[in-house]
């Protein structure tokens, strides 16, 4: 009962912020250096927020909170975020 989903669910949250197809956006992990599409990451989602973790090393890639009239993003676990146009 960990609320673990695949990253497509988290990509939906990011879609509200970025004008790109976020399931195909790529994130490079600061922990292990691997690059994955967000759709392939592990997402933990519940009422407090969304935590996106590296599928290889479990490092927290992205934290997302939408609360109190704000969107908050912590992307310290991502070395590079790549989003393709079109």
């Amino acid at each position: 009962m960990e609320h673990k989903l695949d990253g497509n669910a988290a990509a939906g949250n990011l879609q509200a912020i970025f004008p790109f197809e976020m399931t195909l956006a790529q994130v490079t992990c600061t922990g292990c250096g691997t690059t994955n599409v967000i759709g392939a990451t592990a997402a933990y989602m519940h009422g407090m927020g969304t935590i996106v973790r590296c599928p290889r090393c479990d490092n927290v890639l992205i934290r997302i909170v939408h609360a109190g009239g704000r969107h908050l993003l912590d992307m310290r676990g991502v070395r590079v975020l790549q989003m393709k146009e079109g």
Partner: protein
Amino acid sequence: MSEGFISRGFRGRRQQSEQSGRIPPGQYLERGFPVLSAGPTPHTPLAAWDFSIVGEVDQPKRWSWDEFRALPHETITKDIHCVTKWSKLDTHWVGVSLDTLLAQVMYDASYVIAFSDGGYTTNLPLDEVTGGQAWVVDTYEGQPLESQHGGPARLLVPHLYFWKSAKWVRGLRLVDDDEPGFWESLGYNNHGDPWKEERYWGD
């Protein structure tokens, strides 16, 4: 007046109003026990588990699982309130008061950072976890605390929103300067008093 004149509905409404005084603003009564997790459930073997107090202390102090279990345990019955708006009344726990743990260290600090397996942290003023306000608990409703609810041991600070009651707790770092924890650094209120609805930054 005999019992027959008092309707079941009347008794129900009185019980509801007794309970409603215990439910903070914006909360609803939950009969289940929702699980909110930010990552995989840790499964630290008890032989490898320890609880430490570190930071602004003369000497760091560490208890193994057996040493922790041998400490004086108290029975605690408290209402708990999650920032996601559910509240549970009269939850029953058994654990060690932070007063008992802190009495075994010499320290000079203003804040504690509770840290857990998996990297979770939460910050609290020291004067809000002493004087009978906080425990490290290992038993819930008479059973060993389940891993999905933070077992083998979690922090219990029931007067604040439940994200402050860190699951899978492994220790306290005592500090002079406050450091916002996992949720406090990303939009959630640094203090978290449910009776003042301190849910988010700026509340």
